[in-house]
């Protein structure tokens, strides 16, 4: 029984924390915080992901607890690939100027 409680408690706390974080992100979206709305909601998502990955997916566990260093390496490499995709692609998108052709009307090119 004690062993059961020892295993269940961290999972239960994670679940409660996830629901609290969800409530926080939803509530904060209704407050007018300008650009902080995006920062807060993405930060909360990152925290939720870290919690799910570390505890539910055993990324923070040793071999004896069901984890392994190899899993951490694989997860970090996946994340690194994502960062490379975003960094390289956006370095093009954010620095490219869109030139209007002479025969295009402003309405055609300007988008909201």
């Amino acid at each position, binding site marked *: 029984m004690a*062993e*059961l409680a020892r*295993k*269940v408690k961290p*999972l*239960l706390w*994670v*679940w409660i924390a*996830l*629901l609290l974080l*969800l409530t926080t*992100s*939803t509530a904060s*979206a*209704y*407050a*007018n*915080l300008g650009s902080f*709305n995006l920062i807060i*909601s*993405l930060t*909360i*998502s990152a925290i*939720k*992901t870290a919690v*799910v*990955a570390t*505890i*539910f*997916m055993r990324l923070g566990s040793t*071999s004896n607890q*069901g984890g*392994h260093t*190899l*899993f951490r390496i*694989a*997860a970090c*490499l*996946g*994340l690194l*690939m*994502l960062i490379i*995709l*975003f960094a390289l*692609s*956006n370095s093009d*998108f*954010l620095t490219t100027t869109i030139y209007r052709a002479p025969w295009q009307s402003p309405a055609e090119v300007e*988008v*909201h």
Partner: protein
Amino acid sequence: MSTATANHFPDQETARVAANFGMWVFLATELLFFAPLLLGYTYCRVAFPQGFAAASRHTEVIIGTLNTAILLTSSFTMAMAVELHTTLSPRIYRLLLGLTALFGVAFLVLKGFEYHTEWEEHLIPGRHFQFEHNYARTAQLFFFLYFVLTGIHAVHLSIGIIWVLLLACRKSKLKNDNLLSNAGLYWHFVDIVWIFLYPLIYLVARHG
């Protein structure tokens, strides 16, 4: 597989590490499956902030929030099943897996209602798309991304549901049940994808 150590593994522990590592590598590739869509979303949101804000206000935030809570809870029941499958009776183990699958189905049902609402409001990109004229083009981009992202997520979720149901029909008495732990990893990954999709779709501009 999980009923006996495959011949080329010296012991169960090596087999477990190999199985889970393979799953993690696969999940890393699945992350790159969603990545280009998120890249497109990032570009559009930076380039057309008002259109995206206007479009996001037309999403069903109550269904979205409820779905997020459902998926988070399903991750909890899945983690319980994986963590406790040797400690619990087979019946409770099957109940936990069944609940996980049920939550997944509940998510899909709510998503179906949501898609139907969006169809009625003419928010499906294409010939019959209707939106206020100023933001029509970029709102259509938003909803294109919305339907593809949530659609592909729903496909992943369906695969997870079938996997979990198959596991529930099987009795597991193995200490290292690799099919079960890999299913857990897959389910949590699908949950993580939704954790990021939720604010990007539903919470863009809820204030004012």
